[in-house]
């Protein structure tokens, strides 16, 4: 199994972002996904900046994939996706079916992100005909669905896509027209003043009993708990995961990556405290 670094879901200042990827360049990551997937107003880095980063990380030996928005509302956002699809150098992760279609028209291979909703092997086959070479398992599916999807594809014959599974990070649970982070300080999305730049790991939503529950990240709602499947790595391999996705969080990513490397080499590891992992075994996502 390989390790990937998923796209940065948060809005970090430019220098912090560049420093982070400089540090990641030296990490044992097979694939690095780059780009903005949550909100088109976040422009600390331009497409040119992301392309420069992509070339540097590629030169450092990583496969690089450019990720696109999960929810596309404005014509300008679709145009931005078209520019990313037409970058000429790197493959694209489709955040939404719109980008699947753009890739299909351009005859380009793509990765189907978790927002593409590939729930079964027939859907995977249809998307493969459109150019899909790798798919990220929808976040609410687990081991059983991964196994039956692979079994279905094998039965049909033909090639299999690569399967990538969210192995570490806050789970992207939903996206909305509204910006929750701006709304929490009494602003609309149009007057957000980039409030989310003050929350490098999102903003905790607690129940009235103070239980950490959800995490607001602009227009996205994430889990408050970090999904950590590091102690299930052997099971992920047996079920047929090809790539384990680690999402950037504002903590010691090097240690997290090291834990996965250890797990991949067969050493026993313990998942981080307070982590969740229910989806993988068919339980509620917030179960540990």
């Amino acid at each position, binding site marked *: 199994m390989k390790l990937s670094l998923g796209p940065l879901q948060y809005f970090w200042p430019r220098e912090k972002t560049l420093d982070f990827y400089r540090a990641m360049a030296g990490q044992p990551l097979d694939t690095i996904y780059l780009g903005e997937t949550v909100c088109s107003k976040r422009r600390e880095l331009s497409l040119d900046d992301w392309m420069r980063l992509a070339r540097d990380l590629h030169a450092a030996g990583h496969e690089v994939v450019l990720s696109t928005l*999960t*929810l*596309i*509302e*404005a*014509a300008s956002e*679709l145009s931005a996706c078209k520019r990313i699809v037409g970058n000429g150098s790197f493959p694209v992760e489709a955040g*939404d*079916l*719109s980008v*699947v*279609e753009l890739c*299909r028209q351009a005859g380009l291979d793509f990765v189907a992100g978790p927002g593409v*909703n590939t*729930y*079964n*092997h*027939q*859907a995977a086959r*249809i*998307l493969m005909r*459109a150019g899909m070479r790798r798919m990220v398992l*929808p*976040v*609410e*599916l687990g081991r*059983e*669905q991964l196994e*039956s*999807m692979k079994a*279905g594809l094998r039965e049909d014959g033909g090639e299999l896509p690569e399967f990538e599974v969210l192995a570490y990070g806050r*789970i992207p*649970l*939903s*996206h*909305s*027209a*509204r910006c*929750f982070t701006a709304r*929490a300080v009494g602003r*609309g*999305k*149009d007057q957000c003043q980039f409030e989310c730049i003050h929350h490098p790991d999102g*903003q*905790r*939503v*607690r*129940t*009235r009993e*103070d*239980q950490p529950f959800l995490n*607001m990240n602009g227009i996205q*709602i994430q*889990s408050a708990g970090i999904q950590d499947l590091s102690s299930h790595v052997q099971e992920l391999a047996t079920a047929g995961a090809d790539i384990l996705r680690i999402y950037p969080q504002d903590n010691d990513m090097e240690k997290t990556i090291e834990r996965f490397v250890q797990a991949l080499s067969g050493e026993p590891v313990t998942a981080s405290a307070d982590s969740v992992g229910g*989806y993988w075994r068919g*339980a*509620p*996502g*917030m*179960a540990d």
Partner: protein
Amino acid sequence: MKLVCPAGSLPALYEAVNNGADAVYLGFRDATNARAFPGLNFSDREIDKGLAHARSRGCQVYVALNTYPTSDRLDQWYSAVDRAADLGVDTLIIAEMAVMDFAARKHPHIRRHLSVQGSATTPAALRFYHEQFGISRAVLPRVLAIGQVEHLAGQSPVELEVFAFGSLCIMVEGRCQLSSYVTGKSPNVAGVCSPAEFVQWEDTPAGKTARLNGVLIDRFAADEPAGYPVVCKGRYRVGGQTFHALEEPTSLNTLELLPRLKAMGIAAVKIEGRQRSPAYVGTVTRIWRQAIDRLEASPQASVNEQEWQQELTRLSEGHQVTLGPYQRAWQ
């Protein structure tokens, strides 16, 4: 412009048809539709009866097969497509591409609409569904501002249907996992959001509490109306404040936008509420029928009738209505 109304049961179907719906939409009694609540939906015999009644009044019947089968359950969805075809329904509302592909190949003569759960918000996504599966209409997710709907209507390869009235789903439909995060069951997989078997009510000295699988979604004071605990409409703590952090309990009401929707060529408006009572369906259908008829007679007419608005507000969640994402201020 067509009026598409909900039928969670045969009595609701009669109310919708008798009050002027152009089409009713309904589902089978299982996870193949996104309102798989106990006590709702149709047996084959009920669909037969409903079809006969609808046909006698010139009303069409759509069947919603708008959930996402996993590999091991695909056959159940394929059988549901065959069953709807055998019953002779007019249209299938489908969310998932394997189901759509099956319907297009096996029963090409039955119209296929892309469900809101299919989550298409751009001309590119609509083109994919149109070219791959020959859909003739798409229902738009409730995430676009009215100007964005207008722009999309000018570019779309297929007819568009938009939500007119009813409960407001604030997340892009078909891609929300809040329910399965808490309960393990989601609209996509189980056809339910925040299923009733996970809801616990309790009267406490601090008020009535509503929990979903043990998680405190809200607590209500004695004089407060207690809403059903869906995750996105609970009250939570964020940065020291306690409030409806995602959305207040409220309903979408786009009556005042109706002339603009008609002018941009929207093919159909949809009333949400298969889980609501027959009386609710009848009243809402009657009001929207009158509004559409008035506009058909005179495109310049106003439909912002005070009496209609009051009645719709009375029927709304928390007696509050909103234009929701259609207006930028909500966003």
